[in-house]
């Protein structure tokens, strides 16, 4: 049961009893496949359910005038992509798939019911959303203060580290289906600079990025350039390290 992608994610944030795990899994409705580049949740909508990503890649974003957008975060398997909507009711951003994905709904009234019965499970879900806030703080700091090469290095470190934590890494490689345009829109740089920066990191022999697979060649150096310190992700295994 622990191998279920959603539990792998939640167990990074706290222990759960078998009963709590079952209760959480019972919230997950029948999964469905969503094509790439589909908006699943619209800004200003008031969904009656949250979505959990079981496979694929998605992002949260805000639309700006013209065809501009700011990507706020990337969603990987195991992420509950809008647990906010359970509490905040009206979406202040949108969620879209980047690749073909498998998603499942979690109905708000059932989340409430289960959370009232299992305070420890509520705590772990709360902790998961707190870590999301920590990731936003990290992005704000990185994007606001660091040069393009550090922003890209940080993003690659974070995605690799998060994917690895839910068992989606194979050695030093992860599937990372982001386009240069996605990276540019997430980091506040032009597509030209996203392209150049990836080339720079390749030329430094820190990464390989081909056919949507990221391979980390020199983690230490990449983390140094990206000022990536994993503590902000608050994974339990790294608490005391």
């Amino acid at each position: 049961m622990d191998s279920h992608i959603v539990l792998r994610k939640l167990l990074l944030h706290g222990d759960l009893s078998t009963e709590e795990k079952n209760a959480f899994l019972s919230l997950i409705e029948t999964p469905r496949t969503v094509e790439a580049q589909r908006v699943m949740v619209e800004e200003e909508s008031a969904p009656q359910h949250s979505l959990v990503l079981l496979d694929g890649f998605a992002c949260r974003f805000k639309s700006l005038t013209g065809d501009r957008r700011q990507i706020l975060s990337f969603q990987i398997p195991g992420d509950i992509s809008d647990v906010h909507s359970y509490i905040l009711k009206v979406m202040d951003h949108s969620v879209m798939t980047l690749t073909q994905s498998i998603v499942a709904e979690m109905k708000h009234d059932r989340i409430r019911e289960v959370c009232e019965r299992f305070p420890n499970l509520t705590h772990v879900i709360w902790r998961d959303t707190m870590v999301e806030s920590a990731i936003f703080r990290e992005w704000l700091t990185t994007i606001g203060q660091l040069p393009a090469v550090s922003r890209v290095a940080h993003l690659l470190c974070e995605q690799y580290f998060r994917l690895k934590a839910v068992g989606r890494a194979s050695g030093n490689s992860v599937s990372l289906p982001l386009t240069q345009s996605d990276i540019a829109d997430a980091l506040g740089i032009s597509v030209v600079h996203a392209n150049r920066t990836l080339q720079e990191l390749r030329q430094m022999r820190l990464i390989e990025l081909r056919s949507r697979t990221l391979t980390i060649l020199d983690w230490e150096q990449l983390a140094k350039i990206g000022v990536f310190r994993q503590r902000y992700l608050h994974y339990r295994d790294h608490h005391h390290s």
Partner: protein
Amino acid sequence: VTTITHSPVRVATKTEILDGELFFVDGVLVAVASKLSSSHNSEAGKWFTEACFGQLESTQKRLFDTLPDLTAFIAQHYA
């Protein structure tokens, strides 16, 4: 009547040196554009605004197919 002129320059990126143009409005520098090389994949040959000043400063860095396209864009902002 504003006069837009440009003159060639070499532009350094972190990994290579590109052909570029300095753009002037009535003799005042308003943009540095570079011609993207083959390392920019499908964007190769297009003109990219590496840096913009004055009325152009708040515009997004962007690509143009030709120098006349870029000149027209500058003219719009100094109309």
